[in-house]
């Protein structure tokens, strides 16, 4: 896909999303959009490490969870302003990614899957065991909310939160597109597609892997901080298999290695699963449907929805 075409698509998408509040006044629908934007940031950043760099990272939700708990602990225990905690969450998540990358850079294949997964379990266990700080299994509630002067972001049907989430998604997407089109992004693809060749061209495989993980953690952590401040809770559920597989299905169904595919899939799947939650008897079945969709995409359309759409447009790569 040509770069110009990608930009047109992104500008179109974000203009549309920016206009949504003009005709959507329901605070519930806007809430769904906000949640969808949050998942879109998680999924597209996961796509950077999993899809672009080819790191078998199954601990991506750890970065999100660390962002959530950074914001919760900083505001509740240290009294930091919620405005400051959101960028702070990006910093702590990136540091955690650096720590996680240390063992991962040396490992290969299934062991990368196991270690990244184990790290997420380690963080979950730490959160559960340190209940005097983290609230344990019950989590933390009543976090402070965002406001400018006297204007609370929850007012006007969550208008402030809507645009805040949208601008975070936009910054994250621009960052990812810029990163993947840069020489660094190309070197990541080289490492993914042909390790030996990349190494022969002087690319350090371990270093690129570490960098990819750290880069993918920044906005994931920031959106985690935002998620905690927006919902005003932090609960260990963010580390669960369920959250992870939902985010993973967004990456896969959207199209691995495309960045914008997971963004679209995240929005579509958030609304689809939420709509199904309203139907009686579908509360559990909707997760089964998402899992089946994931398998179907892997078997029938490995490029995901993005891959299917790209086939309609002549490629000039």
């Amino acid at each position: 896909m040509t770069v110009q075409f990608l930009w047109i698509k992104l500008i179109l998408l974000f203009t549309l999303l920016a206009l949504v509040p003009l005709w959507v006044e329901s605070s519930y629908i806007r809430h769904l959009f906000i949640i969808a934007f949050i998942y879109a940031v998680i999924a597209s950043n996961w796509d950077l490490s999993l899809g672009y760099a080819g790191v078998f990272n199954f601990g991506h939700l750890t970065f999100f969870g660390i962002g959530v708990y950074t914001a919760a602990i900083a505001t509740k225990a240290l009294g930091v302003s919620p405005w400051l905690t959101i960028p702070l969450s990006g910093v702590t998540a990136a540091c955690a990614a650096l720590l996680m990358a240390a063992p991962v850079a040396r490992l290969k294949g299934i062991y990368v899957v196991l270690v990244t997964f184990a790290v997420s379990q380690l963080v979950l266990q730490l959160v559960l065991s340190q209940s005097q700080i983290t609230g344990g299994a019950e989590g933390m509630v009543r976090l402070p909310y965002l406001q400018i002067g006297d204007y609370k972001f929850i007012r006007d049907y969550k208008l402030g939160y809507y645009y805040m989430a949208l601008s975070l998604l936009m910054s994250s997407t621009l960052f990812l597109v810029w990163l993947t089109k840069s020489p660094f992004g190309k070197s990541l693809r080289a490492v993914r597609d042909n390790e030996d060749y990349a190494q022969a061209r002087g690319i350090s495989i371990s270093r690129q892997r570490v960098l990819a993980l750290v880069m993918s953690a920044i906005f994931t952590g920031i959106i985690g901080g935002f998620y905690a401040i927006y919902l005003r809770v932090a609960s260990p559920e963010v580390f669960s298999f369920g959250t992870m597989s939902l985010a993973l299905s967004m990456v896969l169904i959207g199209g691995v290695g495309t960045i914008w595919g997971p963004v679209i899939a995240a929005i579509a799947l958030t609304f689809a699963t939420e709509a199904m939650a309203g139907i009686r008897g579908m509360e559990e079945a909707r997760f089964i449907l998402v899992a089946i969709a994931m398998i179907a995409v892997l078997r029938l359309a490995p490029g995901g929805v993005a891959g299917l759409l790209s086939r309609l447009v002549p490629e000039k790569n």
Partner: protein
Amino acid sequence: MSDALLTTLASGLVLGSLYALMASGLSVVWTTLGVFNFAHGALMMFGAYIAWTVSEAAGLGLLSGILAGTIVTGLVGVIIERLLIRSFYGNRNMLLITVMTTLAAMIIIEKGAQMIWGARLKQLPRLIEGEVSLFGTTVSAHEALIIGLAPTILLALWAFTTITSTGRSLRAVGQNQTSAALIGIHVPRAFSIAFAISAGLAGLTGALLGSIRFITPAMGSEPLVKAMIVVIFGGLGSLGATAGAAYVIGMLEAILILTVGLYWTPSLMFLVMIIVLVLRPNGLFGRRLI
């Protein structure tokens, strides 16, 4: 030796036996197919529910329940291999794709179980009532049975893969699929057998565990995570190393619970595991595999 230490030793043995049963199932599939089955814990849970349905809901007795749990789960394993694994052989991303498809299978089985059996806790009766004295401390007879059964099953599994020709064909397929096919081994059949054995083991473990823990749709995830630790310690390559690591981990867990308490134990175990992997990327007893 003090009483606390003896009790710890006994509970370490029970844990180690359970982990050995779980991890050896993972190892069989890994060595034959090169697939890491994330649905293994969910299959264990499924076995427990089938055992409960046959023995409690249908009232056919615990032994037939355990038997049914083992066989039905084994069949589910064959279905998983057919539907979710087989079409990806030879794909250069097979390892990653099968992690994802088995993860999807885990979600389907877990949510499916919740829809079929509900969220209410269930429990199986014990196979043998009463208590047994072991190293001067008492454990329940059911736990003693698990301690005895695990090595027996592992030994049988080892014998199967070294003595019988079917078992040897599994190892041949694991070492080199093309050569195995050339000497007349039906490779797809070997895959099905490996998955059936592995899932059957998971079902059996679940049915045995259903008597000492509550049966819930999420009961499989904790043992799966522990089996992953075992597999990382022992490496995935050989049954012996995996089984050995299972007992080491079981003991370590029991000792940590005694010394640092229930809260810190899981964190410490993960930490130890990550350190082991940094120092020895192929596991504590592992040989170079990949």
